[in-house]
């Protein structure tokens, strides 16, 4: 099984569309224990991603594409999410081959690299009520699943969804919500939710093309 540049682009566009559709929900969640802007910021990030994909042409490599996205996200002004997502794409790029397609193993390694690079600057672990609560189980699920790409991505999305859902039970230990501590229990984490929507969108974007 190989993953093509075309598939990669579809996945990314699907992720972007999914997050943008959830904009108001994300802002609303952030209004409870944050500063009411997460949807706004994620929309900016996802639009920059979309533009980078649209402008990328047929000639680029997967690493090149992801690098372009990382650079595009980096020039946004958008609070915590911008450096975090910049770093995530930077890590994905580092883990991706400088070719227009990749093997299943390379696909898995790319996500692993994204997660690990992000962890270095994020420092948040599972249970800290951040985007990592959706990303970490998703990357783990991807590593543990075999089968066709579509099925793998569905399993990944389910893991992200479950992980984001669990944040309802956690007290925030990172980001602005940290200041509310225990009081944040009962509300999901905004960043975990946007990560969930992104990963679900990756899966949907893949489907759309098939």
């Amino acid at each position, binding site marked *: 099984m190989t993953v093509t540049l075309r598939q990669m682009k579809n996945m990314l566009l699907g992720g972007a569309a999914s997050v943008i559709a959830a904009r108001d929900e994300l*802002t*609303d969640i952030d*209004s*409870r*224990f*944050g*500063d*009411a*802007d997460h*949807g*706004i*910021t994620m929309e900016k990030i996802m639009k920059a991603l979309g533009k980078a994909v649209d402008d990328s042409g047929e000639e680029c490599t997967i690493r090149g594409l992801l690098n372009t996205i990382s650079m595009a996200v*980096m*020039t*946004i*002004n*958008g*609070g*915590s*999410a*911008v*450096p*975090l997502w*910049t*770093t995530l794409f930077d890590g994905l790029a580092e883990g991706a081959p400088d070719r227009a397609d990749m093997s299943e193993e390379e696909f898995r390694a790319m996500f692993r690299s994204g997660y690990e690079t992000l962890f270095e*600057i994020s420092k948040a672990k599972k249970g800290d009520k951040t985007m990592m609560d959706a990303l970490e189980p998703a990357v783990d699920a991807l590593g543990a699943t075999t089968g066709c790409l579509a099925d793998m991505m569905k399993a990944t999305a389910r893991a992200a969804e479950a992980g984001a859902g669990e944040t309802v039970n956690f007290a925030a230990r*990172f*980001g*602005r*919500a*940290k*200041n*509310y*501590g225990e*009081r944040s229990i009962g509300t999901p984490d905004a960043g975990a939710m946007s990560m969930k929507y992104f990963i679900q969108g990756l899966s949907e974007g893949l489907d759309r093309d098939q």
Partner: protein
Amino acid sequence: MKMKKFLNDPNTLTAEMLEGLALAHGDIVDVLPGNLVVSRTLKDADRVTIVTLGGTGHEPALSGFVGDGMLDIAVAGDVFAAPNPQNCFEAIKLADRGRGVLFLVLNHAGDMLTGNMTMKMCKQAGLNVRKVVTQEDISNAPRSNADDRRGLAGAVPLYHIAAAAAKEGRSLDEVADLAQRYADSMATIAVAVRCATHPASGASFGDLGDEDMEIGMGQHGEGGGGRQPMKTARETIAIMANALVKDIPLRKGDRAFVMVNGSGATTLMEQFILYKDCVRYLEGLGIEVAANMVGEILTVQEQAGFQLNIARWNDEFLRLWNTPARTIAFSK
């Protein structure tokens, strides 16, 4: 309910605000691409220079403190959102007059992430930069756990003191060490009584009900401390000043700086009353107030409430403080 603000487009708030700022204060600052608010005095500077970064929506901070005797460049992000590291890196390159750059960051998640990435880029480029973080909010963590303390309005007097030291020709290490000493000498606590709305999304954050105030609210209304029924100015000051005095700590015979920073809808009348109550409270402890700032310094949109910042001052801080400054929001 419709948001009752005079705006045009949620997507261009920061750009339009900076355009207005540049038009109103072109004698003091230039606004360059990348939301760089640059002091007109920078080009002739032969000294350590000072750069900071931060979201907008807190006006006059941070851009209002760019100018002679304070910041050389403030890098504005977007509403409540840190600028990107690229812009900060460009700002530091631009600010560097060969004597190095002091890079001041308030401890907030986004600002810190950007600050760290910026420092990485500076290191790669071989720039001479020292980063100092202010993290003086006492409401969430003890002094021993400084990483959990937010940076609030206490950064503002630090701008002037560090800039005054830079003007004296001191080296980057000297200026940065002084800034760190200042950061370590102060403490802030905030109280909110009515919440603000985000000017782009229109969403209001927090909910304080009709009767309550919350001590320990952050820059954007993030909670932390206790919610309690509204109290008088004097009672509120007693609670807040007491907590700050213990944290710093301040003792009989010490000299203090006191800042009352209105967060938006709290009137200057109230701020003067609160300041008076704080001076009297400290007098009662044998602590003399040697300098002050009272006014809207770092706001949170139309939030009602204020930040109380107290610092232990020595002769050096006081001498540096009493040097000239000319910025948009502060002159001496």
